[in-house]
Structure formats: C-alpha cells, structure tokens
C-alpha cells in the first residue's frame, strides 16, 4: 500500500486510516458529521495526493485530448480548467477527469482518479498515435484540497497570487508559503468553494505547506478532513463518484453528464453517444430522498409501486447537512421525473423514496 507525503501528519492528527485505491488514506479524524459541517460552514483540508496527474505536451496535445475526452478542450485558454470524461469504444466512461490548460495547444495537465491511474495511462497511451509527449507525474505530485466558504480567506496571506478572486475552474501558478511552482485552482468536489493546491514534494515542500495552512487557519478553526466526509459532501451536491455512480458500463448521457459531452468534435464513441442522445437513453442517474425511514446504499435494488425492479442504487447516505437519507441510482427513463415515487429494497423491506432534483436540498 502506498503512502502520501502527508501520512505522518494524518497519524499525528489521530486519523482513522484505511486503504483506498491502493493508498493508505485518512477516512476521518473527529467524525464524518463534524468534518462535513466544518467544510460546509468554515474550512477543511483534504489530502487527495492519491489522485493521478498526467502532463501532455507538444503540437498534438490538444488534438489528442479532443479525440479522447467528451468536453471541448479547444475552449480552454491558459489558466482554465474543465471537467470532462474519457470514453471507451462502447461509449462507457473510462474515467472522469479535470483538464488543465497550461499552454493552449501545447501543454495540458489531466487529473484522474487514483484507482484509474494505470488504466487511464494505458488507454491514453494506446490512442496517442501522433507521439504526444506524456508524463505521469502522479507519484511526485502532492494535492491538497482546501474547501469551504472561508478557505480562500485563510490561504490568501500565504501568497501574493490573488486566490480570493480566483474564478471557478481557473488556476494560477506561483509561490505559496515560500514554495515555488505551486498551482492553485478554484476547483474541488465539495460544492463548498475553495481551492485545490498542486505541488511537487521537493525540499520538504509537503511539510512546509501543510504546516503553513494549519498555522494560517488556526484561529479560524481549519480542520483536516477525511475521505468519509469527502464522499458525503460530494453526494449532497449530486456529483458522481467513479466506481460508484459511473464506470465503464455507464454512458455520460445516462449519468447526467450531457453538459460535458460536446458533439462539436469527434471523440471515442461520439457517434454511439450521438445516437443515444437522439434516440433517448433507456436509464438515467437520478437523485432521490427517502420518505420512509432507512438509508440507501450502493447496489440496493430500486422497484416501482408494483414491485418491478427498475434500477439500482449507486450511492447513498444519511446527508449530514440535510438531515435526511439521500441517494443516487439508475432507473428506467420513464421513472426519472421529479417527485416520482420509487421504492428502495433495504434488507427485507420495500421503503418509499421520491425522485428529487440535484443538488439535494
């Protein structure tokens, strides 16, 4: 199992650790509900260094990205990022990812899920027929997500870069906490605002930056946050988690990711997806909240009032900010309208739920 550059910090902070995607990661420190509230209301720090980063460089870099991802990366200027997906030959999702434009046409960073680093690398390499220079910088790259309404206020004194006014899905690079070449982007997967901080762990940079952030956030009460709260935070927003809500067998259109699926260019299986779009998909990912008392979990079956199986739960939890049980799952398209009553099969019971709009409220 791999460690990140912050493992000793997590242990010193009393984190409950568990294996995740081959990494020894902090699941929680003081409790998921407490950490979740800290991010929604104040600020919290996630070590997400397990995520993968690839650099694609050269004249053909943009063309390669355009051919393998669903979103339109030609729209990106320097300092902009976008959410996108890699598709397989059947129109399923190889991974969801972020595309950072370092230099238009010439240099990009792809940020991929930890569990998919090797799979994505192999997939992209096989499609790299024009000899684009590829670097897997995952091992040496540290990534901290500092999220919450007070995150940028806390971090601003640590740098001369303007991070208070950094627009959503844009980034800047410079000196942060005395460390050079730190990339800060106004991204994150919590819906709480804040930034993500990428840097290389050289000359003790990981310790320096971790300590500087916690010192800067001391009076404001900044907290370390584990992957448990990361999951409840993203789920409240209706954000997909790879391996739960999306995978090689789900199409971006089924998953509600039509907004990042642009038919202004050709990409892997774009013709299949275009056909899906014009004919309509047979199932869709929906959000639902429980009416009866119970908590939906991954893989529980979903039925209609007559007891016919109409789908499956992909994510579920008791939502800490909302004080109700929520979930997402794929159901047949005729069952996807808002307020439609569906039933979640929990152990030996059929419990009533209703389809709701995302994000959950």
């Amino acid at each position, binding site marked *: 199992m791999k460690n990140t550059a912050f493992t000793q910090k997590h242990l010193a902070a009393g984190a409950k650790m568990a294996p995740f995607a081959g990494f020894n990661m902090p699941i929680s420190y003081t409790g998921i509900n407490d950490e979740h509230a800290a991010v929604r209301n104040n600020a919290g720090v996630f070590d997400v260094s397990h995520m993968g980063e690839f650099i694609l460089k050269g004249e053909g870099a943009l063309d390669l990205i355009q051919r393998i991802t669903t979103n339109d990366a030609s729209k990106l200027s320097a300092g902009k990022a976008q959410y996108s997906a890699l598709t397989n030959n059947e129109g399923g999702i190889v991974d969801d990812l972020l595309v950072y434009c370092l230099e238009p046409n010439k240099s990009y960073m792809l940020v991929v899920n930890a569990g998919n680093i090797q799979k994505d690398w192999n997939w992209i390499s096989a499609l790299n027929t024009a000899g684009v220079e590829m670097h897997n910088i995952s091992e040496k790259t540290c990534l901290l997500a500092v999220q919450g309404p007070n995150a940028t206020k806390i971090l601003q004194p640590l740098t001369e870069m303007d991070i208070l006014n950094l627009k959503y899905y844009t980034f800047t690079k410079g000196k942060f906490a005395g460390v050079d070449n730190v990339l800060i982007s106004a991204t994150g997967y919590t819906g709480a605002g804040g930034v993500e901080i990428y840097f290389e762990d050289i000359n003790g940079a990981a310790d320096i930056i971790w300590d500087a952030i916690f010192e800067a956030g001391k009076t404001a009460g900044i907290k370390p946050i584990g992957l448990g709260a990361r999951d409840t935070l993203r789920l409240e927003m209706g954000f997909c988690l790879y391996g739960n809500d999306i995978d090689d067998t789900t199409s971006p259109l089924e998953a509600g990711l039509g907004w990042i699926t642009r038919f202004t260019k050709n990409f892997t299986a774009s013709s299949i997806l275009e056909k899906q779009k014009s004919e309509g998909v047979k199932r869709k990912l929906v959000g639902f909240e429980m009416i009866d*008392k119970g908590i939906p979990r991954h893989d529980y079956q979903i039925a209609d009032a007559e007891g016919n199986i109409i789908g499956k739960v992909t994510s579920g939890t008791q939502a800490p900010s909302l004080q109700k049980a929520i979930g997402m799952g794929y159901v047949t398209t005729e069952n996807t309208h808002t307020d439609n009553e569906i039933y979640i099969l929990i152990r030996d019971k059929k419990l009533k739920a209703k389809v709701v709009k995302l994000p959950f409220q």
Partner: protein
Amino acid sequence: MNIPDSLRYTKDHEWVKLDGNTATIGITDFAQGELGDIVYVEIETVGKTLDADAVFGTVEAVKTVSDLFLPVSGTINEVNPALAGTPELVNSDPYGEGWMIKMTVNNPADVEGLLDAAGYQQMVG
C-alpha cells in the same frame, strides 16, 4: 478505550449487563468508534425469542451498516426509545444512554460464558 469491568462482552462487540434474568445490551465503545457517526438504529425484534448469535437489528453509520447479534438466547422486551430520535447517543454514551435492548435471557449462566473485560480488551488489542 473504555471497557467497564462490570460488563460482559461478545466477539461481535456487544456488551451485556445482567440484572436477575434481565439483560441490557448495547455495542462497545470500540465498536462505536469503528463505525463512526451513528445515524440510525433499526431494531424490529421486540417480542421475539431468538437464539444466541441471531441478528436482532442493524446499526447504520454514515458510511457503513452493521448487523447486531444477540449475545445470548432469550426474548427481546424493549428497545431504547431514545435511539429513534437521537441515535448519536450510541456514540456519546455507548454503555449508558446509548443502550439498545433489554431482554429476558433463557439462561443467566450463558452470560457468565461471555468475555470479561480483560478478555475483550485482549481481543481488541
């Protein structure tokens, strides 16, 4: 970790307090810590007579769901009514306010056969 000497324990992390032939049962401090924030305790076996090791309910934390196993055979008489509205009592006071059920045990001597505090301490390390 809190493991009171006065209680008996199971390998499934339940504790038992015997008073005559009535036993009060809950989950241990270790168990609540492992589960994390508890959000729902579902016990629908009141009035039922079950064997030792039978599932008498489930406890749901934010991230996980876990079965509850009956430490000894007997009849379940009562579920802690406070848990319906405040399941977090299991986290904050696992041996007190966070108790789960009261039961009439078939054979009080069965409780003596469970782990004592030292035995449980050794098991969880």
